[in-house]
């Protein structure tokens, strides 16, 4: 990767989002280098999910720009950004309740092929993705629930399916919004191991409140507070940063 050091895979400059005058994301400069794992932390309401929505085109920035993989993607539609190689998982589990688990993954795998437009073909065509779908479900530990409706999954399993869907798109940039929220210890460790595995050769940005997860995975960390970047650096730098310590002690009390 010759140009990895030349320019970051993802770069925002002065990215701002206002909701009726309220600044949820304020002048955020973020640079994520190719092949790194980046954590986004901060208290609830800091603007992390809003930032993800801006990066994936679900919200249009009030001002500022987003560059991904050498091009300006500011204002592009979510499906366009997905095709460029950005996949996300949602903080609030967001699935198709009436669809089986394996159908979810097949639908994600079919997305870049254009098979979805073939209204004259049999839905059985989707089975060509079955093998790959089952392999992905195996990776996230859901192989034995492949036939179940997504609506019937336990919470942690829904999170795992979110991850499988994002992985199915084989993205250059993987955005995970609280992938371990609500998981038991065992599932948290499995998710850490899984993210570690899939982050080889990939760039990952994730939000998590669990400092064990952040410490195990993140090369670099950005701390957001009230929509602004409070601190940025390696996990150890950020952890000992005075402003961060103050902010966290301040709110922990």
């Amino acid at each position, binding site marked *: 990767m010759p140009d990895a050091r030349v320019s970051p895979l993802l770069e925002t400059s002065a990215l701002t989002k206002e909701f009726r005058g309220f600044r949820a994301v304020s002048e955020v400069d973020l640079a994520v280098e190719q092949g790194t794992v980046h954590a986004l932390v901060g208290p609830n309401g800091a603007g992390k999910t809003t930032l993800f929505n801006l990066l994936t085109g679900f919200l249009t920035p009030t001002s500022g720009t987003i560059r991904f993989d050498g091009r300006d993607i500011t204002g592009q539609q979510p499906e366009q950004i*997905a095709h460029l190689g950005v996949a996300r998982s949602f903080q609030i589990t967001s699935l198709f309740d009436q669809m089986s688990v394996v159908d979810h993954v097949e639908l994600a795998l079919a997305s870049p092929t254009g098979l979805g437009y073939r209204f004259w073909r049999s839905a059985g065509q989707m089975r060509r993705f079955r093998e790959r779908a089952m392999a992905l479900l195996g990776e996230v530990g859901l192989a034995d629930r492949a*036939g179940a409706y997504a609506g019937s999954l336990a919470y942690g399993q829904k999170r795992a399916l979110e991850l499988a869907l994002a992985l199915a798109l084989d993205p250059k940039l993987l955005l995970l919004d609280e992938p371990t929220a609500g998981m038991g210890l065992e599932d948290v460790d499995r998710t850490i191991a899984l993210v570690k595995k899939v982050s080889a050769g990939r760039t990952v940005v994730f939000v998590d409140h669990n400092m064990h997860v952040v410490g195990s995975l993140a090369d670099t960390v950005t701390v957001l507070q009230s929509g602004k970047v409070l601190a940025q650096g390696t996990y150890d730098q950020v952890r000992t940063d005075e402003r961060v310590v103050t902010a966290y002690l301040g709110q922990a009390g």
Partner: protein
Amino acid sequence: MSAQLEQRVDVELPTEPSAVGRRPVVRWAMLVVGLIVTLALPWFVYPPVAMDIAAWALFAISVDLLLGYTGLLSFGHAAFWGTSAYTTGLIAINSGLPFPVAILGGAVVAMLLAVPIGYLSVRRTGIYFAMVTLAFAQMIYFIANQWRSVTGGENGLQGIPKNLGGLTDLVNSDSFYFYYAALPIILIGVFIAWRTVNSPFGRVLVAIRDNPARARALGYDVERYKIMAFVLSAGLAGLAGGVFAVSHGFASLQELIWTTSGKVVLITVLGGIGTLWGPVLGAALVVSLEDQLASSGFNGTGIITGAIFVVIVLAFRHGIWGTARNGINAWLRKRRQGARSD
């Protein structure tokens, strides 16, 4: 026991909890029964009424493709049914071509009309989508009403011929024969709808219906899919409207008025959305009921069907078909459990 269950899950993916309409045997049985009833219909029902049932069934299926499978409530589908009725009539009158060709022409024009209307309305969702489609349909109604030289204004378009090459005399002699001549067009329409909802495209539509944001995050261009579904649906409504116009021998403003859009939504919801069978059942019930009421000299048909609609929708949220299916499934499950505990 549980290991056994899990293994079965692996073998027959995906497991669907609904037995009716899912197990291949049941599906084929329903299809055969449906075909026999359709073919036998003009023996039991006055043939023009049988033809009306078939046409309205396809019209309602076209609405179900949007409402039941894509999550879009079109309140302006009379625009496509009516535009095709007029176009079919104009082609048949002016060219003398066989009526299936005229109907095909009507359906194509309905689809062309659906491109700009779909493009401009799919950005809206829910009630706003319904309102935008209604507004466009009212515009088409207005144009047809004003453009007397072509549409005949309030008099409608009279004398649409039933041309069919060497069979013209036969299909003109008796509406019984016309039913069988026109039925293949309806069946082709139903087949297209069935193929569509059981295709990869149909899978994406259901995904869009259930969670559009997620579908977009997976890279699906939701607006484009909705426009495609809208245009396909308009084509089916067009086929139905064309058959209706040729069957009656005229096209009138009645075909374009908003109550026609309302009636087809009523039929669809009454029968049960998201099933394809539901709209067929709804059409059979509403059209034959209206015929009964009309032939008994009763004037308040709209009030009666409206009242029945309200009662059924309140009592059976999933429509007649959906409610019956859920009932049968519950009964099957119970019976199976009973058999196991014996």
